[in-house]
């Protein structure tokens, strides 16, 4: 409501300051979108038009050839399907675990402080990349989809957010339920969970986006191309073409291996799912930041 403190008063008289400000913001919005639009139009353009520099924001020589090639390849589609399933499964399990930890820890439980210390400590100190890797190897989880799920089941940060959210709920309802003889489990499923839906939705989205965008764990743990999640797959597409693109500047055989339009189409493949869900998820993201005043 008060966000436009400064704006409200001068709403009647538009000053030059205001015009300049609006213009600058418009420029930034364009700068923000331009790279995406450029890639989108490249994916729809003919390779000849790209190489001669005709493609800027609008596609030239429109064709779906690049997309057809990507579809034909099949491995991209499979990777996309795998990532959708992985993200859905991971988010569900991660949320389940986070709730299972958050509910007891939101109560005055004997031994609570010990649990809290165990959790908080991991936020400041961790084994590190190599010990993580050796553990996954030791558990025979490399090249197993579990390596992308199990090590990240609970984000301690999100757990703290959920704990403080549950604690902020009006205590009357769950107390009444307990007096009426509800077991803790029943109170959780009937009272606490329904009331926590805003927090659960937000955190699920954070988990899902994190998994969708996750790259490093797949790079370390997955070497079997059949199990590549979309980010790793996309990275391979880009890197495999790099030998020709920015690294060797002798331009003749530039882009002979991987046409620019196919690279662009591959990028679109990994981006479009985020773009589709983004607009209506946005409010959750922001409420999430407010929820725990998360920094990033």
């Amino acid at each position: 409501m008060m966000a436009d403190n400064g704006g409200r008063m001068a709403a009647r008289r538009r000053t030059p300051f205001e015009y300049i400000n609006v213009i600058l913001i418009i420029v930034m919005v364009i700068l923000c979108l331009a790279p995406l639009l450029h890639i989108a139009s490249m994916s729809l353009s003919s390779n000849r038009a790209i190489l001669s520099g005709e493609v800027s924001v609008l596609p030239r020589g429109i064709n779906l050839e690049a997309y057809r090639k990507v579809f034909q390849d099949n491995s991209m589609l499979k990777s996309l399907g795998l990532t959708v399933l992985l993200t859905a499964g991971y988010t569900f399990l991660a949320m389940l675990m986070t709730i299972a930890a958050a509910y007891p820890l939101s109560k005055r439980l004997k031994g609570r402080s010990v649990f809290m210390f165990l959790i908080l400590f991991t936020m400041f100190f961790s084994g590190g990349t190599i010990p993580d890797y050796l553990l996954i190897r030791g558990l025979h989880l490399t090249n197993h989809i579990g390596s992308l799920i199990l090590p990240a089941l609970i984000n301690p940060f999100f757990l703290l957010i959920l704990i403080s959210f549950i604690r902020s709920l009006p205590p009357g309802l769950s107390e009444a339920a307990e007096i009426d003889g509800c077991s803790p489990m029943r109170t959780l499923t009937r009272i606490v969970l329904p009331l926590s839906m805003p927090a659960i939705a937000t955190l699920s989205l954070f988990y899902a986006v994190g998994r969708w965008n996750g790259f490093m764990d797949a790079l370390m743990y997955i070497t079997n191309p059949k199990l590549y999640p979309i980010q790793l797959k996309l990275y391979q597409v880009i890197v495999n073409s790099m030998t020709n693109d920015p690294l060797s500047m002798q331009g003749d055989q530039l882009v002979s291996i991987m046409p620019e339009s196919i690279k662009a189409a591959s990028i679109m493949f990994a981006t479009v799912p985020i773009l589709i869900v983004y607009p209506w998820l946005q409010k959750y993201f922001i409420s999430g930041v407010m929820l725990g005043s998360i920094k990033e």
Partner: protein
Amino acid sequence: MKSLRLYLYRNWQLYALLILPLAFFLVFKYGPMYGILIAFQDYNLFKGVTGSEWVGLDVFREVFGMSGFYEALRNTFMLNLLDLLVSFPAPIVLALMLNELAGRRFKKFAQTVLYLPHFLSWVIIGGIMFQVFATKTGIVNLLLGRFGIDPVPFLTDKYAWLVTYLAVGVWQSAGWGTIIYLAAITGVNSELYEAASVDGAGRLRRMWSVTLPGIRPTIVMLLILKIGEIVQIGFDRPYVLGNVSVRDFSEVISTFVYKTGIQTAQYSIATAVGLFQAVVGIVLLLLANAIAKKITDNGVL
């Protein structure tokens, strides 16, 4: 005794709920901490932690003798410092500008668009960057060419690459970073604005003398935290954006650990580097928090 039994009878379900999460933390968070021991060993994958030979601090001596380590450390500091100079002020300026927008709809639209890059992975951003900044075919160089400017090797010259790295960082983070400042701005007392305009302060003046001081505690707090994280660096951004020809600048601690540890299987060395970074990182973070506490009476930890 009796009351304890009653307590457990009432609450056993709560403890049962904690079993799996506890197992998770012990296995996947504390398990790797045991693995840190190999930083003090001549670790052999087949002999394991129990069978490998203890070598005291020899591994650290070796690490501190590696030029690659110092380079990675220097680059970590350099990239973080430059990021601090560019990416830290950007969301503040942007938040101040967004706050001055009068049209609610337009403001909402602008915010929606500006937050978007935050949700794209570094692989996607890297892919976009390679195409947009390519020396021959990239749109940026084509546009520069129209003004008669020679192509700039944004991806292959290390100094030009720094500019690219920083610019992409601002593109990705500036919008999202405004959220916390916009929230802080809503907390600024609106009477101050009225008083200021009665005194004849224009928009720019109010922005400078009311809004900015109003969010100063937030700025200071975030700045101190960022400085506390100066030795930490994510993996994805430098790894994906970097390439062989700019390795002098793009090799940082996180990528160095990955390469020595996983690609060349020098587990002990990579673990020691990681441990060094973690310890320095935690000391800096605690220090930063102590300072933040002193300045704002309000720590973060």
